[in-house]
C-alpha cells in the first residue's frame, strides 16, 4: 500500500464511557482503501469498545469517526451498517433460533458487489453440510466461519472482525488466515482486532497497539522486525 491511497475510515480523538467508567481516552487511527489493519492489545485495552463505537453501539462517546468523508459518530448502528461497514462481533453472535441458512442470509444486502452464497460456501465448505441445522449447534470453528461468511454477502466494503481466532484450534486459525488473505485480495478493506500477534503479524499491512484506551504505538509491516520487544511489552501479561 502506498501512502497516497485514500483513507476509508478515520478515528480522531475518540473517548467512550460505559456508565461512569471511561473505556477510551482519545483514540486515533485510520485505515486506507484495501488495507488490512490490526488493533493489538491486551484484554480490557479498549479494542472491542473502539469497534463498538465505530458501529454506533456505544452511545456515550465523543470524537470524530469519519467513514468515506462522512462523520458517522452520531449515527445509529443501522445507518452506519448501510454506509458499507460490516461487523463480525466477538463471541461470534450466531443466532440459536435461526438455522445456518437463515443466519447466513440474515444481514440485508446494502450494495452491489457482495459475494454470492455459493462463493461463501466455497470458502467454507463445512457450512454446506450443516445448512439446515440450528446456528448454535455448530462447533466453535464452524460458528466462526458462519459469522465471517455472513457479512460477506452484503456488499459492504469495510469488514470489521473482533478476535476471530479466539478459542479456536490452530488448524482453524490457519484456515481463517487464508480466508482473510483471500478477502484482502478481493479488495475488501479489513479492520482486525487481535490478541494473537503471530496470527496478525503475517496478515496486516499496519498495526496499531492499543493500551489504556488509546493507540500507543503504530508499526507498518516492515517495521515489525526491530520492534518485537516493544510489542511484547504491550501484549505480554
Amino acid at each position, binding site marked *: 500500500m502506498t501512502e497516497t491511497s485514500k483513507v476509508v475510515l478515520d478515528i480522531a480523538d475518540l473517548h467512550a464511557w460505559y456508565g461512569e467508567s471511561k473505556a477510551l481516552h482519545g483514540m486515533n487511527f485510520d485505515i486506507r482503501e484495501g488495507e488490512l489493519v490490526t488493533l493489538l492489545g491486551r484484554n480490557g485495552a479498549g479494542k472491542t469498545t473502539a469497534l463498538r463505537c465505530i458501529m454506533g453501539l456505544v452511545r456515550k462517546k465523543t470524537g470524530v469517526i469519519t467513514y468515506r468523508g462522512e462523520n458517522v459518530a452520531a449515527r445509529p448502528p443501522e445507518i452506519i*451498517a448501510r454506509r458499507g461497514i460490516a461487523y463480525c462481533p466477538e463471541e461470534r453472535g450466531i443466532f440459536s*433460533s435461526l438455522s445456518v441458512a437463515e443466519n447466513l442470509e440474515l*444481514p440485508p444486502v446494502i450494495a452491489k458487489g457482495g459475494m454470492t452464497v455459493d462463493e461463501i460456501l466455497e470458502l467454507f465448505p463445512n457450512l454446506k453440510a450443516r445448512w439446515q441445522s440450528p446456528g448454535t449447534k455448530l462447533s466453535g470453528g464452524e460458528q466462526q466461519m458462519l459469522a465471517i461468511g455472513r457479512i460477506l454477502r452484503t456488499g459492504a466494503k469495510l469488514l470489521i472482525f473482533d478476535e476471530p481466532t479466539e478459542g479456536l484450534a490452530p488448524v482453524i486459525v490457519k484456515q481463517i488466515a487464508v480466508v482473510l488473505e483471500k478477502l484482502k485480495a478481493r479488495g475488501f478493506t479489513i479492520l482486525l482486532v487481535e490478541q494473537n500477534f503471530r496470527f496478525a503479524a503475517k496478515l496486516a499491512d499496519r498495526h496499531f497497539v492499543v493500551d489504556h484506551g488509546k493507540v500507543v504505538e503504530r508499526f507498518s509491516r516492515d517495521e515489525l522486525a526491530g520492534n518485537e520487544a516493544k510489542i511484547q511489552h504491550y501484549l505480554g501479561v
Partner: protein
Amino acid sequence: MAMMDLIGVPPALLFGQLLVGLINGAFYAMMSLGVAIIFGMLRIGNFVHGAQYMLGAFGAWYLMRLPELFPGLGLPSIGYWWALVIVPLVVAVIGALMERIFIRRVYDLDHAYGLLLTVGLAMAIEGAFNVYYGAAGQMYGVPESLKGGINLGFMFLPIYRAWVIAAAIVVCFGTWYMVERTKLGSYLRAATENPDLVRAFGINVPRLLMLTYAFGVGLAGFAGVMAAPIYQVSPQMGQGIIITIFAVVVIGGMGSIFGAIVSGLMLGVIEGLTKVFYPQASATVIFIIMALVLIFRPAGLFGKETTSHSVADVSSGRSGSFLENGRLWLAIFTVGGVALPFLVYPVMGMKILVLALFALAYNLIFGYVGLLAFGHAAFYGASAYVTAHAAAAWGLPTELCILLGVVVATAIGALFGWLAIRRQGLYFAMITLALAQIIYFYAVQAPWTHGEDGIQSVPRGTLFGVIDLSNTLNMYFVTLAVFLVGFAFVYRIIHSPFGQTLKSIRENEPRAISLGYSTDRFKLIAFTLSAMLSGVAGALKAIIFQLASLADVFFMTSADVLLMTLIGGVGTLLGPVVGAAVLVTLQRELATLGAWVVVVQGIIFVLCVLFLRKGIIGTLEEFLANRAERKVQQTADRSEATTRIKVAQ
C-alpha cells in the same frame, strides 16, 4: 350416542358447549398469539391487550353507526367486512403510537415497569370507555352474508361461528408461518436474541419493534371485530379476558408462538367441556390447569427451559438514611397516629392504616425480594371474607375471626408461593395474577360469600371481651396498634439475617445460591410472610368497615397495592405508608369525579412509571444523598484549600 347417554349428557348440550368452547378458544388463540409475540420481541407483558381488543369491537360498532354519530356529515354506515379491514389497521396505528410515546421508554428498565405501564394504560382506556358507555353492552348484528346456520344432524352450526373458527385458525397459523418461516420472521427472531447485533447488520430494530407491537395489537383489534357480533360490545369485554390470556400464555410456554395458538384453542375447548360436566369450575378451570402445568412442566407445555431471569432490583431505599430508621419512625408514627383521629375523620385514618399495612406487606416481597407479585388481592380478600363470615355467620369472638382470616391467607400464600416461586420477573407476575383469579371466581360463585352483595353488616364485637369495637375511637386505636406492630415486624424482618439474605437474593441471586443459600426457600418464606401480613390487613378491613366484598379479591386491589408501593417508593421503609396516605387522600379528593377515578388512577400509574420510578421517598432519598455528597465534596475542597494555604505560607 349411546355412550353419551351413559354419562348422562344430552349430545346437543355437549356439542353446543364444544362449539362455544371452540369459539372462545379461537379468541384465546388470537389474543395470546399477540401477547406472546409482543412478549417474545419486546419483553413487555402487554396488559393493555384486553383494552385493545375492546377498541377493535368498539371500532366496528362505531363504523356501523357512523351516520348516527356524525349526523351532519352524511357518512355511510360501514359494515362488517370493511370493518374487518379498517379497524385492525386503525388499532395497529394506535398501538404504534402507544409504543412510540410510552412503551419504548421502558425497554431498558426492569420487566415490572412494562407491566405497570400497560396496566395503567389499560385502566385509562377502559375507564374512559366505561365513563361513556357504562356496563351496558352495545349490540352488533351478525353480517347479512353470514347469517343462518347448517343443521349437522346432531347439532345446529351457525355460519358466523364456523367462520370465526376458520378465520382464527388461518390468521394464527399464517402468523406462525410468517414468524417461523419467512425472512421478516428471521429478523424478528434474531432481534429477540441480540438486538444490537441485528442493528449493526443494518436493520432498523427500533422500527421493527414498533411494527411488531403494532402487529400484535392489530391482532387484538381483529379479534375485537370478530367478537362484536358474538359477545356484547362493552367497555369491560377486555378486562376479564386479559387475565385468562396471560394464563394461556403461561400454559403454552412464554414466548412460544405455537404454544400460544394450540393452548388457546385447547383451553377454550376444555373450558367448554367443563361447562357441561362441572359447570361450577368452568370459570377457574384454565387457572387450575395453569397451576398443574406449573407443577409438572414449569416452562409451559411448549416452552423451552430458559435460563432464569434475575429478580427485579427496583428498590430505591438507601440504608443508613434517617428515612430508613425504623425505631425513629415507629416513635413518630405512634405519636402521629394518636394525634391523627383528632385531625382527620377516624374512618379515613383507619383506611390509611389498613392500606399502609397491606402495602408494607406487599413491599416485603416486591421491594425487598424483588418478585413482582400481582395477586395480593387474593390474600387480602380471602382473609376479609373468612373474618367477615366467622363474625357474621358463626358469631365467633373478633380476635378469633381475625386469626382465622390470617391463617387462611397464610395458607393460600404458602400454596401460591410454592407454585410460583420458581419463576421470576414478568412470569411471576402473570402466575400470581392468574392464581388470584381462582380465589376471585370462587368468591363470585360460593354461596357463603353472597356474590355481588358481599358479606355485609359484619359485627365488630368486643376485642378480648373487653374493648368495645363498635366505638369508632376504640376501633381506631386497635387498628393503630396492629399497624404499629406490623410496621415493627416488617422492620425487624428486613434487618434480621433473614432480611439480609433476601436483599442478597435481590441483588444477585446466582451469587446467593453459590454461597449456599437455598434461595427458593427464602423467597417462599418471604412470600408467605407477605401473604400473612396482607391477611392481617384484610381481616382488619372486614371488621372496620363491617364488609367483605368482591372488590377486596378483585385484581384492581392487587393493582392498588402495587400503585401505593410505587408512589411511595419501592423497597423503602416509609414508601408504603406514604403511598397509602397519598392514594387514600387522592381517592377521597377524586370521589367527586365518579367513574373518572379509574382513568385518573391509570394516568397516575403511567406517570409514576415514566417520571417517578423511585417514588416519593426514593426521590427524597436521592435528593438527600446528593446533598450529603455535595457537602462532603465541599468540606474536602475546603480542607484542601486550607492545606494549600498552609503550604504556601
